[in-house]
């Protein structure tokens, strides 16, 4: 039956050849290669939960009187956006679970992108021929951060409203075009003419997701076309891919992983409260709460703003607010430029024009690893700086002390991290190839003559890497299907 219908489709669309290639696609197996899949699956979850939310959310700044089930708000004048967010949380069945799962999925999405990116960076997977895919990936990271901020702003609560206010000031701080840009986006001077919520909504649910979907398709398409990188090992060369086929091994694994990602996201959504907007109240430009932070992926931008001294430049009848412009526009611009340009910076440095399908071990590229560690340390420290008030409160320290601590630590820590990482890598590289391998015990024996000798013990099971025999991939469509000696067996593809 299945055979018949597939044949029917194949006769018309010719899917067999492509489908065979797809099902036989070889994926090298290493746990760190699955980090990107977390991002993929949380993005799917974001789309699914987001569609649910958009059925109930009202993207409007129009003021109404709240008459929902949340008692402390009853009778207050709130925007429709805020009222619908609160009613999503209290009146819509599974609404709060969906809202929280959506928010957690966003946090996990960007977190897994960061981890995946670190893996790609430290193993040199961005090298020729994969520079395009690196650029596509960084673009998705930037779009993800932007969309996270927009989505965070949509409930129109006090905390996110403060974020929009900061965003307006950041746009305004750009020389020459800043105020025009801000007025254009907000439809007038802050808080604008009530257009910002509907505009953010359109960008959040339509434009950016469409861009991400397009880039994601390109990301995966390039991955399929260029094939996955692999760690060096027995039988693995620059010209082949050693791993498990898409069907039946990899597809089972990755589908299971989709379910597990869903489980983790929804467990968090059910058990850990996130962004309880009903506690915050409707955003009013004249109100403010203390201890307001953005979501974590914006934290490094907020932290840079916090620790910046209040410098500004006044001249020729204009003011250049360096205390906003430098940390909030120049700093992220610089970081993203470095990220985007890194493959080309490295090529210019190493003059390496070769194809690379085998990955580097981080220790074998001490300078790159050290540079990556320095960048991560810098971002981590600026990230921590965005919670100066919470840290001060937790450690019972004066706020100024924490602020000045970060003013020194942020520029100094990357230098320390670079030096330490470099030293560690060099040390590890010099330690030799057998580092990390299981040691063989020496057995002391006494011979019949009373002589003592030592000899290495027998290898234990699991010692040494056992390579399975490769199965050659069929180059033609065979109706009987390929010989699958063992499901999950390792096969070798000639590129």
């Amino acid at each position, binding site marked *: 039956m299945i055979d018949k219908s597939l044949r029917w489709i194949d006769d018309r669309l010719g899917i067999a050849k492509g489908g065979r290639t797809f099902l036989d696609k070889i994926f090298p197996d290493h746990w760190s290669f699955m980090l990107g899949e977390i991002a993929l699956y949380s993005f799917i979850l974001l789309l699914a939960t987001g569609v649910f939310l958009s059925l109930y959310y009202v993207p409007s700044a129009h003021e109404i009187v709240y008459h929902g089930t949340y008692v402390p708000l009853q009778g207050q004048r709130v925007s429709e956006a805020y009222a619908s967010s609160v009613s999503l949380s209290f009146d819509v069945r599974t609404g709060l679970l969906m809202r929280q799962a959506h928010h957690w999925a966003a946090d996990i999405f960007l977190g*897994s992108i960061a981890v995946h990116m670190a893996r790609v960076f430290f193993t040199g997977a961005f090298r020729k021929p994969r520079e395009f895919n690196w650029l596509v990936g960084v673009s998705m990271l930037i779009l993800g951060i932007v969309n996270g901020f927009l989505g965070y702003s949509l409930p129109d609560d006090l905390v996110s409203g403060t974020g929009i206010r900061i965003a307006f000031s950041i746009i305004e701080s750009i020389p020459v075009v800043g105020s025009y840009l801000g007025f254009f986006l907000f439809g007038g001077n802050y808080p604008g003419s009530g257009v910002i919520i509907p505009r953010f909504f359109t960008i959040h649910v339509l434009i950016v997701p469409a861009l991400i979907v397009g880039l994601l398709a390109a990301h995966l398409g390039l991955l399929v076309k260029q094939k996955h990188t692999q760690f060096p090992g027995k039988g693995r060369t620059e010209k082949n891919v050693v791993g498990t086929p898409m069907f039946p091994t990899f597809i089972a694994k990755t589908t299971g992983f989709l379910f597990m990602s869903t489980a983790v996201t929804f467990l968090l959504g059910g058990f850990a409260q996130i962004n*309880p907007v009903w506690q915050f109240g409707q955003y009013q430009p004249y109100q403010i709460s203390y201890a307001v932070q953005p979501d974590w992926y914006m934290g490094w931008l907020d932290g840079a703003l916090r620790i910046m001294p209040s410098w500004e430049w006044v001249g020729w009848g204009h003011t250049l607010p360096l205390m906003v412009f430098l940390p909030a526009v120049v700093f992220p611009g610089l970081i993203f430029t470095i990220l985007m340009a890194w493959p080309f910076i490295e090529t210019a440095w190493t003059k390496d024009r070769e194809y690379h399908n085998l990955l580097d071990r981080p220790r074998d590229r001490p300078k790159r690893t050290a540079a990556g560690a320095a960048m991560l340390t810098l971002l981590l420290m600026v990230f921590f700086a965005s*919670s100066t008030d919470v840290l001060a409160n937790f450690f019972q320290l004066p706020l100024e002390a924490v602020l000045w601590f970060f003013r020194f630590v942020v520029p100094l820590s990357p230098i320390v991290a670079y030096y330490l990482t470099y030293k560690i890598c060099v040390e590890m590289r010099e330690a030799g190839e057998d580092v990390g391998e299981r040691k063989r015990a020496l057995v002391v024996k006494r011979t019949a003559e009373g002589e003592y000798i030592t000899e290495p013990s027998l290898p234990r099971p699991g010692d040494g890497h056992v390579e399975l025999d490769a199965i050659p991939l069929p180059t033609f469509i065979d109706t009987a299907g390929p010989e699958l000696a063992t499901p999950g067996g390792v096969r070798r593809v000639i590129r």
Partner: protein
Amino acid sequence: MTADRIRRSLGARLAAPAALVGAVALTGLVVFGTGTAQAETTTTAGSTSAYEGPVTTSTNLAGGTTRTTPTTSATSLTTPTAYGAGTNAVAQPAVATALPSAEAAARYEAPSNQDGLYYRDLPDAYIAPGQALYASNCASCHGTQANGKEGVAPNLLGLGAGTVDFWVSTGRMPLANTSAQATRKPPRFNRTQTLQIAAYVQSLTPGQGTKVPVVNTASADLEAGGELFTLNCAACHTISGAGDMLAQGAYAPSLHLATSTQIVEAIRSGPGNMPHFGPGNIPDTEARDIAAYVVKVLQHPQDSGGYGLGGIGPVGEGFVGLLIGVGALMAICFWIGDRS
């Protein structure tokens, strides 16, 4: 054989990452969980606190009647539940979170308590025992005349009973150490003793300063309270009332343990760095609404969505999202992926 090998390899390879993620996650929950206002929503209708509730008792006191039998007075004034061990669960009287019905509101509409808040005079009989308590617990710093010592302790004259009640009932006085700001701790004195000290200090400058308020939150307007709280208080105490650090070692304390009386006393007297709000700024009705909002909504939030993560917003959420969310998924990668 095979099953055994699988079990062994699972145990050995998962133990380290699982233990790491688990330990970090637990630390996170403990760190961000302390001081959370995650109390169960109480649905008891009407206030059961003797101190806040019965209007009949209050009416007598409002008239300034001097009680000749201090024991009776003490009984009616003491709220044993409200000044317990200082833990979140014990320290709070059971309060209603639901809006009072019209019937309940009418019940509390006593003529003397139209605003839900009035200030009472403490009985003269409190002064003598108060003086003794003052001499043995406060005079060493504030001086026998309560006029303070330069560089050691402030002048108490003219501050009024309400100010003294705030500092003593929150346990801030007697002072634990000379840090930048007095910290809240379990009070040393019971309710009667506290009011006796307050009565003594008040008797030195009769009629001056903040009096001890009697707050009836039963008919309070929680919506107005919420708006006023956001407008006047959230900028330092944060929108969830969790408190946060201010400049130079001063901090806005958490409001999760505060009673409605203490809140009104703080509004009126402005302890420490807090601004002092007079009746022209925040009328009595509004002060009562703010106190009701803190006690009924912030301390007993009508909450959904699981564990509150300390009410400190995205810092706790980022911690959980990265370490538990991404961390758990990385552990799963490590589990199902190849590790050679």
